């Protein structure tokens, strides 16, 4: 059970003057249960890549396998694929449309042709997983706050019970607490249900805090694919491609420059705190 991309290329506007290679020979393996951060500057190919994972775009070259099957074969059931690989777009709350929150979340599973009872059970569960309070279930989604609306939209995808959940900047425009709540909820869900989560984000701090693996895209190619602490060691290269490391990385570099620490693997505040404390302890002792 996994997603495999083999030499995937995508060229927009082939045979025209406007030809753009959005993906070039991308090879990736995404096993079950990982929490992956996908980063890259605007136009690096992230969005094109994720749209390939549930068959919204087809590669101009190369193959994508989901659970061992080529998803772009004629006989492949792409409708089913889209329920298994759920994609939450940027600003997903713009896609809410139903009269109540609950009905909105029912829309997806209903279209899968499930029985009414099953549809409702799934909607209930998904809303709970996304952290929507029960008292809001029968409100109009348009009366909710921005953060709440976004949870409802995420629940709409969770109700499809995907094995892979892809979120394109789920925290854009949310206040700091809203960011932490949504990402915390997703992390919890990922741990409990063992689904694969791919988080597209522009916040290096969020990525460092939550994911196990980072894929860095640049000019349609995979630049790095490793654990956060390894990727953020390459902060100079990241800056060259319009990205950065979390602020913590820069803080720890200042400590190293001052001869305070010899090296640092910290990418989160918690880790940085421990490194500094253990250094001070050694110095004393």
């Amino acid at each position, binding site marked *: 059970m996994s997603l495999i991309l083999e030499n995937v290329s995508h060229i927009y506007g082939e045979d025209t003057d406007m030809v753009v290679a959005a993906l070039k020979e991308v090879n990736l393996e995404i096993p079950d249960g990982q929490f992956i951060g996908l980063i890259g500057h605007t136009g690096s190919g992230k969005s094109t890549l994720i749209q390939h994972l549930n068959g919204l775009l087809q590669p101009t070259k190369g193959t994508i396998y989901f659970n061992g099957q080529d998803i772009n074969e004629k006989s492949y059931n792409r409708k089913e694929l889209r329920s298994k690989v759920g994609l939450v777009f940027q600003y997903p709350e713009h896609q809410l449309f139903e009269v109540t929150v609950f009905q909105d979340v029912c829309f997806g599973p209903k279209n899968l042709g499930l029985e009414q009872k099953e549809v409702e059970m799934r909607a209930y569960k998904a809303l709970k997983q996304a952290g929507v309070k029960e008292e809001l279930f029968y409100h109009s989604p348009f009366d909710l706050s921005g953060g709440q609306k976004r949870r409802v939209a995420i629940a709409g995808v969770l109700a499809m019970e995907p094995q892979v959940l892809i979120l394109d*900047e789920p925290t854009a425009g949310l206040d700091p607490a809203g960011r932490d709540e949504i990402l915390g909820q997703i992390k919890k869900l990922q741990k409990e249900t063992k689904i694969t989560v791919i988080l597209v984000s522009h916040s290096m701090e969020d990525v460092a805090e939550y994911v196990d693996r980072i894929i860095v895209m640049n000019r349609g190619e995979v630049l790095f694919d490793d654990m956060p602490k390894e990727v953020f060691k390459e902060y100079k290269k990241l*800056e060259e491609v319009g990205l950065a490391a979390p*602020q913590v990385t820069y*803080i720890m570099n200042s400590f190293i420059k001052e001869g305070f620490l010899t090296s640092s693997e910290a990418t989160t505040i918690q880790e940085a705190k421990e490194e500094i404390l253990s250094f001070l302890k050694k110095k004393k002792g």
Partner: protein
Amino acid sequence: MGIVKAVQLAFEYIRRDEEGNVEGITRAIDGVNLEIEEGQFIAVLGHNGSGKSTLAKHINALLHPTEGTVYVEGMDVREADKVWEIRQRAGMVFQNPDNQIIGQVVEEDVGFGPENLGVETKTIWERVEESLRAVGMYEFRKHSPNKLSGGQKQRVSIAGVIAMHPKCIILDEPTAMLDPNGRKEVIRAAKALNQVEGITIILITHYMEEVIHADYVYVMDQGKVVMKGKPKEIFSRVEELRKLRLDVPQVTQLAHELRKEGLDIPEGILTKEELVEAVKKIK
């Protein structure tokens, strides 16, 4: 009087259900008083729904106060015949660059504002050039805005505002949709306009590290200004900010965590240099 002054400002709107029946009244702004001096760099923080954007929209007369008022360079935003002059003095940049760009070519887009003000053609081109230079986008003047990155588009939006020669620019979450580089570019442009051109900047943001150089930070909650101070003062109040659904820059947070562990480190550390110094002093 400062360039922007709010006096007992309140804004209410009526919530209606599907059939248009009144469900209740929301007081989005609730008695705000503030005074911003010309040339200041001001940051406004607050959780989603705290009233930041509603406040901002009063400053360039997009909303009409329910009670109280706002003065922009002494002009009352309630006076209908002053609206255009106010909007020219206080320009606004929004979150999504794609919703603000209308021209087919960068320089045309920037020229749109002054053209509408009835500025002479020759002067328009001068203004377009100086505005694009001010945000570092002059070399892109002949490009199509569609082909630019988010940060570049946002800088074109800012140039479009500058071309109207405003005294004050209000940026409402201008970096929310941008990648790290784009965020840096936009904040750098805003700072340069403030320092070099002396334009008053009011920056609304959810990114705490963007406001550490501001002259003053206002924090909003439930339509009120609940904190006001220099960044150092504001970010010394970590737990209070948490309760308001906000945060502090990572370096401030790390200093705070170390302090909680019993280390002798002051609150309100805003730069990595300050933190290194503070930790060095520990015996």
